[in-house]
């Protein structure tokens, strides 16, 4: 598996792109983070499967499906470059985690944990959206490159990838 990951890592040098008006980008760092997420989530899924073998209440295929949704949202989070994508990927991750927290329906603790996590996560989502709305109202943009220009007067993208400048 690590040899396969090494081949993917070599491929990362051709994985630079900048699409949807710089909403989604990729470079060597984002690609490496995605590979690390895939490797460690695969290892962790193996550990979960070993645990599910002993616990008959959470032994079902939907668990793995929801777990894969979390991994996909993390991979999407690595490539995202504006607040909209950041919020969407965080919400996809959170909604999947709410389900997994309340997954063991025979346990009162699990249901209580799911409800508590949902309420606190909803409050946190409101705070994040309020902050994003303030920044959008001030700067007129939610793109991270534009916010760099708004904050510092220049963008690091212009120094690293001059040809990608819109």
């Amino acid at each position, binding site marked *: 598996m690590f040899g396969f990951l090494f081949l993917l890592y070599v491929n990362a040098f051709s994985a630079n792109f900048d699409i949807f008006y710089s909403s989604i980008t990729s470079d060597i760092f984002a690609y490496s983070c995605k590979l690390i997420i895939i490797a460690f989530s695969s290892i962790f899924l193996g550990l979960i499967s070993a645990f599910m073998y002993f616990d008959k209440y959470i032994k079902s295929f939907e668990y793995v499906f929801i777990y894969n949704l979390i991994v996909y949202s993390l991979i999407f989070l690595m490539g995202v470059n504006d607040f909209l994508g950041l919020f969407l990927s965080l919400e996809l991750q959170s909604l999947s985690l709410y389900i997994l*927290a309340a997954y063991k329906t025979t346990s009162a603790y699990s249901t209580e944990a799911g409800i508590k996590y949902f309420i*606190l996560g909803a409050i*946190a989502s*409101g705070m*994040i959206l*309020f902050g*994003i709305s303030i920044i959008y109202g001030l*700067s007129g943009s939610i793109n991270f490159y534009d916010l760099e220009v708004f904050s510092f007067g220049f963008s690091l993208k212009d120094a690293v990838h001059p040809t990608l400048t819109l």
Partner: protein
Amino acid sequence: MGDFYNLEAMSHFYKNMEFTYFIGFLFIIIGLFFKLGVAPFHM
């Protein structure tokens, strides 16, 4: 960037733009802290 809004006119609403900008990022950071740090520990 910034062509949609007249920042000079908006300064009537935001007397101190830097402070409001800081508050916006502060809300985002507190929200991320709640969502990824505090809320899972309350499970």
